[in-house]
Structures are given as C-alpha cells and as structure tokens.
C-alpha cells in the first residue's frame, strides 16, 4: 500500500510540474462552456440580407422598414438590378434577397394582389428555410395590419408549452455534451498518452522491475487524472448553474455519482488504448479519431441520433458517451430519478467491466 501511495505521488508530480498542460486541462472546460454557451447558437439573428426594390413606393418602403426592424435581419445592400443578384450572392455578402416587382403598390391597390419574391442562399438549407419563414412572417404581419382587425369564425387556437426548457436555451442541450467531451479528453487521451509515454521513453522498464504489482502502476497513473476530472466536473457544473443558468433539476448526488462512474469508464478506455498502442502518436490518433469524434458525432448532443441511417444508430450504442449524455440530460434537465436511468447506468457499468478485463488481459508485464 505504501508503495502504491508513492507511485500516486510520483504521478501527481508529473502532472503538477507540467504547468502548461495543467492550465489547458483546467482552461478547456471553461473555454468550451463559454463557446457553447454564448457563441454557438442555431438561432438565426442579424442575418445579412439584400433588397432589390424595383418599385420604390410607400408600401415597399414600409415592408423594408418592418424587415429592418426585426432582429433577424440586417439589411446590408440595396441591389440595383436583377442582373446584380447572382454576383451579390457569389461574393458571399448576403444570405437572402427580397425582390419587389415593378408597380408593387399599384398592383396591390388595384388587384388586391401582389407578389414578393424571396431568394434564399440554400448552400445552407436549414438557414435558408428559417430565413424564408421569418421573412414571410414579417410580410404576413404587414399584410394583416393592412386588413385591420377582423374576427374569424371557427378558429382553432394553439397554446404551446415548452417542457423542460421554456426559454429554448441551447445550453440545456450541450452542457451534458461538454461534460462528456472534457472527461473523454482528460481521462482517455491523457491517461493513455502518459502510459505510452513511459513505454516510449523506456522508463516503463524501470517501473516494471520494481517490486510493485504492475497493474497497480497503471492504476496509480489514473488517480491524478481521476481527481483532475472530478475538479473539472465540479467546475462545469458550477459554471453551468451560475453562468449559463442551467438549473440542476434532479438529485445532485445521483448526478455526481453518475459522473464519477463515467469517469471510471473512460479511464478504463484510456487503459485499453494504452495497452494496444506503442507510440504516443498512435495513442493520440486512436483516442482522437476513435473516441473523440464519435463522442461528438454519435452521442446525440451535436446531431440528433434519430436522423442518422440505421447502421449508424446501431453503432452509436457502443459509444459510452451516448449513454452518459442521456443520463445527465435526464437527471439534470428533466429532473427524473434513478428509475429512469437505471438501464443506462447498467450499460455503463457493463462497459467499464469489459474494458477493464480486456485491458488487464492485454497488459504486458514482460518486456519484449
């Protein structure tokens, strides 16, 4: 036991004395929360649009004014002629063009009917769709204001309630995802690299000839990273509650226990990676391409899993982060209890045991 503590101390010193790495490890969750919390929104606002007004009368001016006033749009150019439309899109300055035909007002007054053309830059189909919807809504509002208030018979109203996230904040979706990402990075990548590094530098030999049981050497390596992750979990939770104002609806104890469970799962994964790779670069590539990207792509936090083709949906089941993400989201946001997450928890426990067994089996105590 005393030997084990010495080894843990040695590993701590390794981590502690590398200030740059420490700084990044603690800075990472902070930065991610900031970026995800404030910079990344799928919300559409202040989009640059262009106006091609062939009519230039009072009605068109009024509509343009309404568009300008909406927070979704930012009118950046007045396009002089139809032929200028395409070059303006190609130069990348606008995402939407609103085109008024000639004699717009006259047509509207005399025939009670006039057409506005909306041209969207569909290189980004979703944005184009949203923009066209928003612009149509503004125009319809204007049209309704022309009519004045008229009561409609037989009307169906809809009341909407947004469950769990009434303000539709993006943060509710990604806080669990960021947690999974950071843990993946700190535990899996850092642990595996630091073990492989000892192999590469040759210091592993020195350790293997010491009287301690080899597997304890490896476990000692995990301890500092486990503590680091615990600190990171705490800082992410604090940041999300106090800075992003994402409340923890469910039980905090349960949440912390689940987080620690996932930490152990990922540490076991790191161990597995280190036992199959011989060089740091390989360990890094495996954890980056094999773990990190699937975590981002297949855990459901960036992209909805139900949209994926079936084979990918099946593959997503072996990504531990998917289960962790579901657990955290359920506890933190929906506020449900253990009875809703027991299955996911069981799967994580099973994965952990599997990784542990495989990596201990593969762990070589002999030198080639």
């Amino acid at each position, binding site marked *: 036991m005393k030997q084990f503590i010495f080894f843990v101390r040695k590993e701590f010193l390794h981590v502690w004395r590398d200030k*740059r790495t420490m700084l990044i490890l603690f800075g990472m969750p902070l930065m991610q929360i900031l*970026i995800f919390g404030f910079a990344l929104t799928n919300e559409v606002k202040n989009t640059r649009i262009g106006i091609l007004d062939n009519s230039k009368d009072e009605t068109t001016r009024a509509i343009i004014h309404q568009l300008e006033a909406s927070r979704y749009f930012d009118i950046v150019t007045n396009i002089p002629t139809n032929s200028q439309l395409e070059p303006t899109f190609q130069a990348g300055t606008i995402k939407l063009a609103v085109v008024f035909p000639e004699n717009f007002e006259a047509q509207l007054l005399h025939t009670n009917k006039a057409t506005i053309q909306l041209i969207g830059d569909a290189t980004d*189909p979703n944005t184009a769709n949203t923009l066209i919807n928003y612009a149509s809504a503004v125009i319809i509002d204007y049209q309704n204001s022309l009519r004045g208030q008229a009561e409609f018979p*037989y009307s169906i109203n809809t009341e909407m309630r947004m469950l769990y996230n009434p303000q539709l904040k993006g943060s509710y979706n990604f806080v669990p995802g960021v947690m999974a990402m950071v843990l993946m990075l700190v535990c899996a990548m850092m642990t595996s690299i630091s073990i492989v590094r000892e192999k590469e530098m040759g210091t592993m030999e020195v350790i293997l000839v010491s009287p301690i049981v080899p597997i304890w050497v490896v476990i000692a390596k995990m301890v500092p990273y486990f503590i680091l992750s615990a600190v990171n979990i705490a800082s992410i939770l604090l940041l999300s509650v106090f800075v992003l104002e994402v409340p923890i609806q469910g039980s905090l104890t349960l949440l912390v226990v689940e987080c620690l469970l996932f930490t152990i799962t990922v540490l076991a994964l790191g161990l597995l990676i280190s036992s199959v790779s011989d*060089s740091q670069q390989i360990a890094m*590539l495996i954890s980056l391409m094999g773990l990190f990207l699937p975590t981002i792509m297949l855990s459901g936090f960036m992209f909805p899993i139900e949209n994926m083709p079936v084979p990918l949906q099946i593959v997503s089941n072996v990504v531990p982060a998917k289960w962790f993400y579901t657990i955290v989201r359920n506890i933190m946001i929906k506020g449900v209890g253990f009875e809703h997450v027991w299955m996911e928890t069981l799967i994580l426990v099973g994965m952990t045991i599997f990784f542990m067994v495989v990596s201990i089996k593969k762990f070589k105590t002999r030198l080639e």
Partner: protein
Amino acid sequence: MRALLILLEKEFRQVFRNPAILRMMFLMPAVQLLIMPLAADYEVKNVKICVVDYDHSSYSQKLVNKITSTDYFTLVDYTDSYDKALTYVEHDEADLILQIPASFERDLVREDEVSLFLAINAINGVKANLGGAYLRSIISDFNRDVRLEWLQLPRQNPQPVIEIASINWFNPLMNYRFFMVPGILVILVTLVGAFLSALNIVKEKEIGTIEQINVTPIRKYQFILGKLIPFWVLGLVILTIGLLISWIAYGIVPVGSVFTIYVFAGVYLISILGLGLLVSTFANTQQQAMLLSFFMMMIFILLGGLYTSIDSMPMWAQIFTKFNPVTYFIEVMRMVVLKGSTLYDIRYHMLIVLLFGIGLNSLAILNYHKRS
C-alpha cells in the same frame, strides 16, 4: 538548397517508413468523410408525436389523420391520458404532445373558438421550435379546411393579399450534404495538417534527435521549410482524396474551378502548418503539443462556421472569427463548390490567409532556437 533537399528526403522517408501513421492519415479522413455527413444531419424530421384525444370526434380524427399523413411526424401513441403521454416524453420516446380537449368539435362549431394544447420537449430548442411551428401550420391548414366547409368564401379577394414566392438558389434540392461535405473536408485537412506538424518537431525534441540537427550547418529557415513542405504535399493529397470521395459518394462536383480550390488550399495549408510548427516550438513533450493544438483546433473549428452560422454569434465571437483561418477556408470551399465563385471573388480571403501564413511561419522560425 542541397541541404533543404536532403532534409526533405529525410522527412519523406520518416513519413513513409511509419506505415501505421500513414494508414491512419489516409484512412481516417476517408472513413470520416464517408460517415460524418451521414451523421451530421440537422434537418428536423421524424418528429415523434403523441396525441392525447379527449374528444374522439370526427374532427379530432381528421386532424390526427392530417398530421400523421405528413412524413414529418410519426405517431407514437394515440391515447386519452396526458400522464401517459408525459411518460413517453420522459423516456424520450415522444418529442411532442398534442392534447385535444373534450369538447373540441362542439366548441369549434358552436362557440366559434377552441384551443388545442401543445407540449413540446424543448431540450433541443431548434427541434422544438421547428416542430412546433410546423404542427401549428398544419393546424391552421386544418382550420382553413374547416372554415371552407362551413363558409362560402368569395371568389375575388376582398382584402389585399401579398403573395410570397420563394426560391432556393445554389442548392435547389436543399440537400444538406452539399452544405456539410465541403466543410467537413476542410476540417479533416486542417486536423491532419495541424496535428502532424505540431507533433513533428516535438517528437525530435523528445527523442533527442533535434540535438543532431542543431549541430549541423542547416539553417533555421531550412529546417522549418523541410518540415513544412512534406506536410504541405500530404495535405494536398488528402484534399484530393476528399474531393474524389465527395464526388464519388455524394456526387458533389464543384461549380467553380478545382484550380481555385487548390490555389486557396495551398495558401491555407501554409498558414495551418505554420500554426502547428509554432505550437511545436513552444511545447516540450508530445503530450503538451497535442493538447495545445487540440485546444486551439477545437476553438477554431467550433467557431469556424461549420455547424452554426457566424452571423448569429455575438460580437466578440464574430471578431474572433476574423482571425480564424478555418473560417476563411470553410467559406471559400462553400463559395467555390456550391456557388462557383472565382479567384477574384475570394481575393480578400486569400490575402488574409496568406498574411496569417507569413506571420505564423516567421514566428515559428523566430521561436525555434538552435541553442538549448
């Protein structure tokens, strides 16, 4: 010049004699490019809806039929208990609950007014918003049908109507892959370039071979160039593979000229490799270099405009994107591939990225010391 050529020979040999790395380098991007666009689908579809019908009238039936006949919504369950519906939402089996009140049909006909209730799982805000809006538009369509049934509408519009005709340019089929694939290709080229160059010098430091180079008459700029050129070539090769894959697998043929893409990619790779080299002159261990470049790449990529539109970012983030080479390449890629922009259209992008490249590489040369 000769020294540079010999250095290049050494670097290329090192790359080609490490089959594991080489395989990773080419296979991974290929696999990613084949899988990622399939996963990266933001399009909101397959919204799972659970209908709670307290009315069971012919109108409520009609409404439900109208909703399920779109391929947008899938009916999870048709029940008469709100609590049961809520359990579906808690288990993520339903995204949306539509509750039809007991006197739906009667109130609609007699009172001229009735309210439906929608409860939406809003953890994913975008999906909630779009799903809700779409359901509302179906309901108002249904409402119009009901009115037509009961009222005779006059032929000519008594009130002014503004018609809205919308067209989608550059991607009329609204294929989301066309949007994602060029962007993902940029990310892959960036990742491979930045990581490999960042790790390279550090590896020599860690193994100790850099000492040997330091005592040779090789000049600093020659050393940096010797590291830069092989990865520059590799980057372009990966770009080529990527373009081929996107052509074969997704049928994406650049509208603009491929030449434009290569010219820009050449300039871009110089700046990204410069960044990697700069990182590797700072770091002492591969672990540090990896973590540092990972940290930067993460910020660059997330704020690069691949997933979310830059226009909707707050001011500070928008200013940051002006200093982010990844942003420029993603923009250029999309402009050239989808809109057919020419070298003249992207001249500013080119100039800025070139300036980044010169700046970063000069810094890397300055920061590389032959003395320890």
